[in-house]
């Protein structure tokens, strides 16, 4: 589990954004397709868009398990998939949220608070021996924070999976199932 998160920036991990019709079972169709064809999902986030007919699924896929081209073509075969775009890191604004509860006894508490401050995170909850902290930011920043946090005793940690939008003014190529010869 942790390994795949720490390895978030592996070159075989690619981010695709899939616009789907907001219909019952759509997420199951997408998840089923990945499972059936043996494609690996590194992370997946789904929520409605501002247009309530559609939801956007941001998927980080492992293209070592299958070529991205084939993954995209198979996704397009799902009737409810409307649009797919790849968001390369240089073209996209990417964000992810991390929540963690760490053991924070007297002797390490101040160091943990300092670490959260350096990363501009937040302390969400406090008890005599524990802190729950949050950090949002680029996935790589979360990786660094998580690595440092591991120096303390993590009780629970959850990341949201990344979401992404194209940078303003950058043209993100829409992926198509059909490509014309050049």
């Amino acid at each position, binding site marked *: 589990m942790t390994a795949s998160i720490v390895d978030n920036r592996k070159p075989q991990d690619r981010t695709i954004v899939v616009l789907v*019709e907001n219909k019952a079972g759509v997420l199951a169709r997408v998840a089923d397709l990945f499972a059936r064809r043996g494609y690996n999902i590194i992370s997946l986030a789904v929520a409605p868009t501002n247009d309530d007919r559609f939801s956007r699924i941001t998927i980080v896929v492992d293209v070592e398990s299958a070529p991205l081209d084939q993954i995209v073509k198979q996704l397009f075969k799902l*009737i409810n998939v*409307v649009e797919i775009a790849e968001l390369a890191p240089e073209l996209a604004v990417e964000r992810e949220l991390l929540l963690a509860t760490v053991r924070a006894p007297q002797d390490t508490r101040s160091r943990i608070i300092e670490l959260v401050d350096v990363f501009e995170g937040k302390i969400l909850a406090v008890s005599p021996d524990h802190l729950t902290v949050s950090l949002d930011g680029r996935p790589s920043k979360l990786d660094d924070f998580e690595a440092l946090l591991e120096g303390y005793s993590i009780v629970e940690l959850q990341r949201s999976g990344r979401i992404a939008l194209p940078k303003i003014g950058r043209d993100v190529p829409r992926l198509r*199932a059909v490509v*014309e010869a*050049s």
Partner: protein
Amino acid sequence: MTVQSTSEPIRLNGGQALIKSLEMEGVEVVFGYPGGAILPVYDPIIDSKIRHVLVRHEQGAGHAAEGYAHATGRPGVCMVTSGPAATNIVTPLADAYLDSVPMVCITGQVAVASIGTDAFQECDTTGITRSITKHNMLVTKASDIPRAVREAFHIATTGRPGPVLIDIPKDIVDANNPDAYFDFTYPPEIDLPGYAPQPQPAPANITAAVELMKAAERPVLYVGGGVLKARGADALRRLAELGNIPVVTTLMARGALPDSHELNLGMPGMHGNYTAVTAIQRSDLLIAMGARFDDRVTGKVSAFAPDAKIIHVDIDPAEHGKVRMPDVSVVGDCRLAMEAMLSELAGAGGAEAFADHTQWRQQLSGWQEKYPLTYAPSAPGEYVKPQQVLETLRDACPSDTIVASGVGQHQMWASQYWRFEHPYTWINSGGLGTMGFSIPAAIGAKAAFPDRMVWAVDGDGCFQMTGQELITASVERIPIKVALLNNAYLGMVRQWQELFYDERYSEVYLSHDTPDYVKWAESMGCVAFRVEEPAEIEVAIAKANEINDRPVLIEFRCLSEEKVYPMVPAGGSNDDIIVDPSQRGDAKGTVDPSQRGDAKGTVDPSQRGDAKDSEGAAQ
């Protein structure tokens, strides 16, 4: 398509709306089986002009719908209830999905409020069928039914065809539920923002494909089921003739070009003939037309057509590069693509534009002479050889006879020995390999074409899976004919055990005489004969062909040891094709035991793996 739109709304309940929607789609026959959750839909069927064929098992409904679709090109429709009925129709859905058969399947479901409560006869039908349908939907409002049906037929029949399932909860079709009534109109428009198949190929890709075709010296058109789905037989013939390009027709494409056509090399693949298989291997250009590089055709992929450039024409973008990376990829409908190629070639000098293929054709003819399909007929008094049955049957039937096959040795022999002269005369389960396919599929085809002769070629193993559908054929007056090739074994499995498992025959013996197929068929309302030696074959077939008022079955007692050749062992290279023992000049194989001429009906004791195989155990 015969879709009309209604302008005047009429007040209907969900059940009536479902039947009305099917009528709007031009449906003439539904294959089905009623039950609890679908009951309300069966009531309005009484008042509809749609014919309902009551099958004896839900699997039969699905395969009959497939048979209808294969024969007509129109979507087959089947309807069953929830739970066990839905799970019984899972196999035909998977079959239709793998063979791209347009089909609409309607399943009953428990009432909306009961979904998820493990109610009686509830199962998660859309969940179970998600990965074996082109699309499926659970409708939860009566007023959504017309749109769902409209979308289902559209999706099933456009792009790469396939099965679509509509799951209908009982309460929304219930005549006693006031909420099930609404003002029915049939939607003229379809709103599927994520679905836009592209039948028209990109001109640049056609040009690129034509350039490769013109330069090729040893081209082969590798034709798959997509050509038939696209109604492309005529365009195929014109393209092959213009370019003098040899054609191989896969199991799903038999009949796409007449077998009598000089350019047709026949079937490639695991049990393809030597010339078709080897032509692909030696080709310098493979034009894959609506074919998907199935493992049964390619054998070992890395050794498949090693010197060939690939043009891949297929309407499904995901097939391109899935198995073999094409040099030119043409996404589109096969007929439109071939027509575009033809018009491009017409402007480029027509036949003159191609390289000379004379030498290539001569090489192919040489192989055809040296390695024809062959078998040794059995001796008088012996049980018969399936190949001889099929040759005799072929010669006794009109050329537009529809042949529906089960799965196994008999399927391969039928595809090899029949002479397909017309498209849509061969109906079989290619991708899924579903035993028991033939009888219900033949019923579906005969329901579509009552005036055509329809023969089911079946094996004894297959027949025991779906033979009860002959009751359907009798009662519904759908007089199909059945050639039952009874070799007392699961013959294909037996063949593999003989060749690859040291003749250790594990659980493959069925017996020649239990059940008594003639009595069984007679009890189902059929006329039935038994043929036990070669001299009886022709007479029995002539008698069967004269019976048109009821189904007829001929049980052919076949020698058990006969094997299908040629054969490319699974996972092996096509170059390692094993031909018939009589053609093995070299030491490629030992003498085929089936060539020894065993006494009638007995099994060579050396081939009995265990006690269960002995004939005595069957008595």
